[in-house]
């Protein structure tokens, strides 16, 4: 079974940070299930020149309350979720006013709706689930802003052209090192 280990840093309302590791085995983008192997927290990605990226938010099932994180969906299929999160239950009453790149979640689509679409209930997702809701515009950055608590979570991905070699002819050949040389040693290669 495919597993993605999500390692978020969950910022609480008093500034505390918890670090639960979460085993994810199903991921949805705008209600559609996606291959789990496309899900990552890596921030550097090689892309085709025509590839695009769109900001999103992710909701993750977790025992102490579902998590809300910034995310970015690449047109290549890669789904990038930030290792940063808030608890939805700390956003009670104003989650719709939280913005993704300046646009309120009320307009983009509320987490509760994304949860319901994935078979969850209110702010509770089935165990192992992560659901994504995309926003606009196309961007390589996603920022969730909670103006009520004056805090923000951001994700910035670095998109590298798959066709370019940043080192070109300066890229060295791989070298082999022996190790301690105080005596003759056999090489097992």
């Amino acid at each position: 079974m495919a597993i993605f280990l999500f390692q978020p840093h969950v910022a609480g309302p008093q500034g505390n940070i918890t670090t639960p590791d979460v085993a994810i085995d199903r991921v949805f983008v705008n209600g559609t299930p996606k291959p789990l192997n496309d899900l990552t927290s890596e921030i550097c990605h090689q892309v085709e020149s025509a590839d695009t990226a769109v900001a999103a938010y992710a909701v993750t099932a977790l025992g102490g309350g579902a998590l809300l994180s910034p995310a970015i969906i690449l047109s290549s299929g890669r789904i990038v979720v930030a290792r940063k999160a808030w608890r939805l239950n700390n956003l009670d009453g104003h989650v719709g006013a939280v913005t993704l790149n300046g646009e309120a979640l009320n307009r983009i689509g509320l987490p509760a709706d994304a949860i319901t679409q994935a078979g969850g209930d209110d702010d509770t997702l089935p165990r192992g689930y992560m659901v994504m809701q995309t926003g606009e515009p196309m961007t390589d950055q996603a920022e969730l802003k909670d103006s009520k608590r004056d805090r923000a979570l951001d994700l910035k991905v670095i998109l590298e052209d798959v066709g370019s070699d940043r080192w070109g002819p300066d890229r060295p050949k791989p070298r082999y090192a022996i190790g301690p040389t105080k005596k003759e040693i056999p090489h097992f290669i």
Partner: protein
Amino acid sequence: MKYKAYAATMQSVWFSEDEGQSWSRILTPTGGFYNEARCWSVLTHPERPGELLAGTDQGLYRFTEEKGHFDYIPSPMDNLHILKIAQDPHDPNFIVCGTRPGEIFISEDNGENWTRANLDAATECWFINTTRVTSIHFDPMDRDTIWITIEIDGVIRSRDRGKTWEQLICGLHDNDTHDLVFLDVSGNRTILCSTEDGVHRSTDNGANWEQLKIPQAKWDYFRSLKQPVENSPVVIASVGDKPSGEAGQFLISRDFGDSWAEAKLSHPPNSTLWSIGTNAADTLLLFAATIFGQIFKSTDGGESWHKIQRELGEIRMITWAPI
């Protein structure tokens, strides 16, 4: 002077606020750091009191006294082991990290953006399979020059702040290099390099190395080299029977490697003395650790060492800083 001591261990970062007598980890529910994360490196900078960078198997982290917790720093190194961290002494926003496999990553903007250096280090090693960075040094005289040691691939230098690199191994008996110290006097430079096979010296800025004869050393395995006072001929060396070993000793040289004497230890080390922590704020105060968890403290510049009763697990680095 109020200070904290920090130990990077295989069970996260330990803090001591009482001069090393007791040690504790940040609270898991509030600290932003998994308390069994493997941590290899801790770093402070004099221009950033209360700030600590930590390199782990889960990424790079920054602790601040103001926040009281660690913040995760996104980087391309999350899936690597961040073994060493260095900050430009003149610019703490310039951060260099060394990893396993042996790679170098550089940020010029305090960790916001990272570049992987085009490092021509060995990509495979017969003896340890995978190479790793063991030390990173900003040249004390030339701000554009960065030195690193790689286990097992010798000494490597960049003269352009990490853009290009050259390997400097001529004369090294062993490329299993661990640490460097520099002495610049009247335009003449001497460098000492600790290796698995003793200490090597260069008097031509790394172009050639010669192995020093150190009869006071009980073993060949030299790990950490430290100058309590910057650009001073006094050097403390940590030694052990092997990695990880079962015994160790401190050697002290007052003439930058020409002669050595054994420092006094209150208790026999249980393994190789792995790390020595110094800070210019008090050049007499040093902490040191064996790889298997013993902590030693010196208040006389490394001449004598007293073992602290508290022991931790596997310690990879120890340091201290005023707060």
